[in-house]
């Protein structure tokens, strides 16, 4: 059980780095070009969902194990 918890933690670190990058760069993009904020937001959410999906695979595995 504790090993599964370590695995979940590692998966969350990965998701944190990934979503942090996505969100941060989207912020920069919006700051540079506020008129494109709608498009940037959509692309940001898609990318964040993909990053999160990969992390959730890890979480589910640690939930089952």
């Amino acid at each position, binding site marked *: 059980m504790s090993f599964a918890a370590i695995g979940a933690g590692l998966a969350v670190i990965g998701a944190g780095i990934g979503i942090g990058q996505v969100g941060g760069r989207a912020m920069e993009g919006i700051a540079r070009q506020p008129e494109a904020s709608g498009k940037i937001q959509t692309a940001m959410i898609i990318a964040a*969902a993909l990053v*999160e999906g990969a992390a*959730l695979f890890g*979480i589910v595995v640690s939930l089952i194990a």
Partner: protein
Amino acid sequence: MHKLLNFSALASLTVLLSTNAPLYAQGHEEHGHKGHEHIITVHEDVEVHGERFPETENEEGDYDPTPVIMHHIQDAHSFHIYGEGHEAVSVPLPVILWTEKGLVTFMSSEFHHDSHGHHVVEKKGMYFVNYHEDIFQLERPDETLTLDEEGHPTNTQPLDFSITKNVFTLFLACILLFLIFGTAARKYKNAGHKVPRGIASFVEPLVVYVRDDIAKANVGEKKHEKYMPYLLTLFFLIWVINLMGLIPFFPFSANLTGNIAFTMSLAVIAMFVVSFSGGKAYWKHIFFPKPWGVWPILMPIEFASNVIIKFFALMIRLFANITAGHIIVLSLISLVFIFQSVGMAAVAVPFALFISVLELLVAALQAYIFTLLVALFIGQAVADDHH
């Protein structure tokens, strides 16, 4: 306004729902049985367990929240209101089984709150027990379940078409959506050239949002109209079910979108929709990717990613997000019992409230992401060849 909802997919969802494999195994405890049945069943023959239940304690005797949490995120054959074991107060739901002797139906109150495979229900000369909300069939009434090394019963399992908590929630969501969108559609019909009022003015911005920002933006200006009924159904069904899962009283926070069988049904339907809308260019791209030198490596990768992994990820994403939300709320509430103090509630309840409010956002966000990604995949499939 075009046909808003296409519910034909839902029939197949319910069938898939009820064949739901046991994900979690727990320890079990001993019970004796006698009891009364009403519509709400209350059992007075309380077994003395001491203050806490052995199942919720670990080796050191501390409170272990895992079984309680797993029980709460699982599907159930009754609406559990409060109480543990035989003191429990719950609303029974119908159990519908397909056995070798045909259809067997009874109310789940006949199990007398037992989900540990002890209370045997006899119907048509067959004996049924409820083991962690899965119905198993016994040969003789005095037989006990045989468990394998991992704690899963090896007894025969009749096909279970019961109206469980999750199935009930799905039906309720369908009725709710029919009412909302039926009324809205009628308002549009009657309004003529005037601005529609009431519920129609509430759903219009949402429908227009799905059309403009999800369908048109990703499927494409020309082809999006055909997919609007499907995309709207997806968005509103997932959203409404997510929200209903957050209501702790009626319908008792059924974790339907946190059920992997349900999300799998959605993903399989999405897979069929995307695969069948794929044109010549799409399949050519999958089976004959260029350059030719790497074809043996690229073809399996393209095939797996476009036909399987995309939808597998959709399934896991919705399942894990909603399940995680439920687990976090339950874990925070469990803090009160772990620390054995009422004072802890002052910390746990505001945190649980905060997470619940966050979950309202997640409910809409996951519905949006699911619909958006399906629209994106459809868009990729229907796109014309640019090479």
